[in-house]
């Protein structure tokens, strides 16, 4: 075997997929000598001929700035492969052809594999293979779709032809004017020196010397070529004097011009449609005045969709867990003679109540992930950060701060780490501080359960209000701190990558939805399960031996109940001073979803359902099945109802909503936990209306108090213990103050 083909290309262009398709299982994976960069070597048979195929590291250019670039070019220069397959992303020729120009400069046979042509076609790009080949000096251009192995035979044919008739492209690449003149004169000098001529392509070496490529110059310094190096230095000075530009910049610029010409003549791109369409949408969506209201309206719609549309399925999952799983688990345990044992209590009050209490919210999250998926895939999500930049600057904050803050809507932990993108230490600390007020995804189940229990069809408004309040508190805090504690230099302006708008693709949205929901299920089966079991134990251990034996006491008399009860009076002014709510807030520090699982465990113990022993399993299955149909029907109804609800935001407009399946008693639509919460808050606050105000105050506290333990640890790691404690203290004070204000002022207005 003496023929070698190397695969070169930008990262993520499907190079490895093509390599796998070409070599099949005949490959060896290792590292490049002395480097940690992966090296893939394989064999390809064309007829009887065995060809070595080498997958080079992904790189955007062949300068000497990164290890991948040096490996790639050293391999081509030193090992002199028979040909290089330049794997090119057809959907992004600008970036990819820049590398191709440099491969051509190396004066080796190049085959252009135009990969991802399906993506390019979807984007409306029409690429002329013939035109591209002509503009690239007659290089073979082959269309491939690596992941579907399309175009492989054509590629093999091109390889076969190049091996038989090596062709290096009859094109003077990109250079012109003084650059080309100086290259030519250096080339003559290089060709006059045998040792250089043997090891390097003269044109490429001349270009590198003009670019002042330190890697190449260092290698030449070991040879006796001082004259050449001196001439190169003089040539660089002449270019700089004549053009006023650094030769490296001039050379790169001429390459870009060459690429532009190639694309202009070989590609029909729909920039007049796609780009201008995105620009037109951006003119409205990121508008100075309308951008923010549009962002808020979309947020409102997302939460309407998330909480109201998912509500029927939430009720259905609740029925599924309680009427099927819990009921039949109790029955089976009873038949096994374990009816009143601690094992039964652990399974029903601990695992099913805790994990099941959180699993009830899977539909809510599913709908949230659907909405997020649509926003991400359509390209809007990035714009949200862009829109908020103006608000941030108006408040004197760094616009880039809003990126970590938007990440904080998902989870506070990566938001804290994302502050590393800010250079200034004060900006970093301030941004991390503010990111904790962004309502993370794990808090959503709390708002949804309280929204559904206390506000019915308006639950989406409560959820929206919580997210909005988080932003407002963050901005006010930021404004105050920026003008006091964290005074710093004016922020550095920045450019942001914004994906073009597109119609969301159902498959991509579904994949995102499924991956995230799967993640939530994993979290339920690990973290929440662990906490539920630990909590069950704490609720089974009596605070004092006189109170009763293990697992046979009132929850309030348990170790957990009594400890929570000690802190409960602190929350009395906020209307939720019970040991149950206090206990939930305490466990919520571990992970915010645990607030719901704790409440579910506490209230489940207090109101276990009466097990209907007459219904058969089949009858229960029918109940669950018909419930599913009803939930599906109501979901459609609630989706349609978003329209009148949104229009009703306009003052004095009051459109009616669809109600195809009116329920006789509202209580029928409550989950077990929701019903318990209504009674508990009513009791603590004094009246049904005060209970609802206390519920809002509780949600405000959940929104603003200490983030979870993982986020606190991230803060300590990034900014130190002192800063962490300052943050914990501030969030506790602000959360308590805000919830007390909400309850007390709410009582004044609504009672």
């Amino acid at each position, binding site marked *: 075997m003496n023929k070698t083909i190397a695969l070169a290309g930008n990262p993520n262009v499907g190079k490895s997929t093509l390599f796998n398709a070409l070599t099949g299982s005949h490959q060896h994976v290792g590292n490049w000598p002395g480097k940690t960069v992966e090296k893939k070597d394989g064999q390809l048979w064309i007829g009887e001929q065995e060809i070595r195929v080498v997958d080079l590291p992904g790189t955007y250019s062949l300068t000497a700035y990164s290890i991948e670039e040096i490996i790639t070019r050293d391999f081509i220069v030193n090992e002199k492969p028979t040909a290089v397959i330049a794997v090119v992303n057809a959907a992004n020729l600008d970036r990819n052809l820049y590398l191709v120009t440099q491969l051509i400069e190396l004066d080796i046979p190049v085959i252009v594999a135009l990969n991802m042509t399906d993506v390019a076609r979807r984007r409306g790009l029409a690429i002329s293979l013939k035109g591209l080949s002509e503009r690239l000096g007659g290089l073979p251009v082959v269309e491939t779709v690596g992941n579907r192995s399309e175009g492989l035979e054509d590629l093999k044919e091109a390889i076969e032809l190049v091996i038989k008739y090596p062709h290096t492209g009859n094109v003077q690449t990109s250079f012109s004017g003084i650059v080309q003149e100086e290259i030519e004169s250096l080339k003559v000098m290089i060709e006059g020196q045998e040792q250089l001529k043997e090891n390097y392509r003269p044109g490429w070496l001349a270009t590198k010397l003009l670019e002042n490529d330190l890697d190449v110059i260092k290698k030449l310094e070991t040879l006796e070529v001082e004259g050449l190096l001196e001439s190169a230095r003089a040539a660089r000075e002449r270019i700089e004097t004549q053009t006023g530009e650094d030769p490296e910049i001039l050379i790169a610029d001429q390459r870009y011009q060459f690429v532009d010409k190639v694309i202009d003549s070989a590609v029909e791109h729909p920039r007049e449609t796609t780009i201008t369409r995105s*620009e037109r949408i951006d003119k409205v969506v990121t508008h100075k005045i309308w951008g923010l209201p549009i962002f808020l309206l979309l947020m409102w719609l997302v939460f309407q969709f998330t909480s109201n549309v998912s509500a029927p399925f939430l009720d259905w999952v609740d029925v599924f867990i309680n009427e099927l799983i819990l009921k039949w688990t109790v029955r089976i345990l009873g038949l096994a003679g374990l009816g009143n044992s601690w094992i039964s209590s652990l399974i029903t009050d601990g695992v099913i109540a805790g994990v099941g209490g959180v699993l009830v919210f899977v539909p809510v999250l599913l709908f949230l992930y659907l909405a*997020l998926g649509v926003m991400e895939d359509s390209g809007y999500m990035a714009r949200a950060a862009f829109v908020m930049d103006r608000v941030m*600057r108006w408040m004197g904050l760094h616009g880039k701060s809003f990126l970590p803050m938007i990440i904080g809507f998902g989870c506070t932990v*990566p938001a804290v780490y*994302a502050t590393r993108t800010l250079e200034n230490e004060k900006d970093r600390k301030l941004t991390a501080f503010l990111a904790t007020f962004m309502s993370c995804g794990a808090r959503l189940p709390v708002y949804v359960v309280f929204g559904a229990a206390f506000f019915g069809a308006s639950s989406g408004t409560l959820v929206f209000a919580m997210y909005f309040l988080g932003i407002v508190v963050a901005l006010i805090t930021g404004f105050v701190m920026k003008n006091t504690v964290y005074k710093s230099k004016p922020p550095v302006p920045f*450019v942001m990558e914004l994906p073009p708008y597109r119609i969301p693709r159902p498959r991509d949205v579904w994949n995102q939805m499924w*991956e995230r929901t799967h993640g939530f299920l994993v979290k339920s089966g690990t973290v929440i399960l662990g906490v539920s079991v630990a909590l069950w134990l704490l609720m089974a251990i009596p605070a004092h031996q006189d109170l009763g034996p293990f697992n046979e006491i009132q929850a309030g008399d348990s170790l957990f109940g009594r400890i929570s009860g000690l802190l409960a009076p602190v929350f009395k002014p906020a209307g939720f001073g019970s040991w149950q709510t206090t206990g939930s807030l305490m466990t919520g520090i571990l992970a915010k979803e645990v607030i719901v699982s704790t409440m579910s465990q506490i209230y489940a113990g207090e109101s276990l359902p009466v097990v209907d022993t007459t219904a058969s399993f089949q009858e229960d299955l029918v109940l669950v099945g018909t419930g599913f149909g009803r939930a599906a029907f109501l979901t459609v109804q609630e989706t349609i109802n978003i329209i009148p609800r949104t229009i009703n935001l306009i003052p004095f407009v009051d459109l009616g909503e669809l109600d195809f399946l009116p329920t006789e008693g509202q209580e029928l639509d409550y989950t077990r936990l929701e019903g318990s919460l209504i009674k508990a808050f009513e009791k603590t606050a004094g009246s049904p209306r005060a209970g609802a105000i206390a519920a809002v105050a509780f949600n405000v506290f959940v929104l603003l108090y200490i983030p979870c333990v993982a986020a606190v640890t991230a803060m300590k790691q990034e900014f130190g213990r002192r800063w962490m404690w300052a943050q914990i203290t501030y969030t506790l004070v602000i959360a308590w103050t805000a919830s007390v204000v909400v309850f007390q002022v709410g009582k004044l207005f609504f009672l």
Partner: protein
Amino acid sequence: MATTTLSKLLEKFEEISGALSIQALASELELRPAQVESMVDFWINKGRIRVSTNPSECGSCSVQGDCPFILEMPRTFELVNDHAHNQELVSRIPCNQK
């Protein structure tokens, strides 16, 4: 006075205030956004522009790779005034891809 498009791009980075999208920048320079991205690569290599990717690092969180709450944000680019060679501020593997 910049004579090359590459230098003009760098000048634009020096002139901008606030946030600007690649599209808007391309529009001002009468280039395709993909051209601007490609040219920005050059300046990143030269250490004159810094790219910031928002990391999805999860620290001590026990959920790590299966977390449903990770949101990805787009890359941002800003001028490096000290001419030091650029290095990505954060180049960690997103925890949801580990």
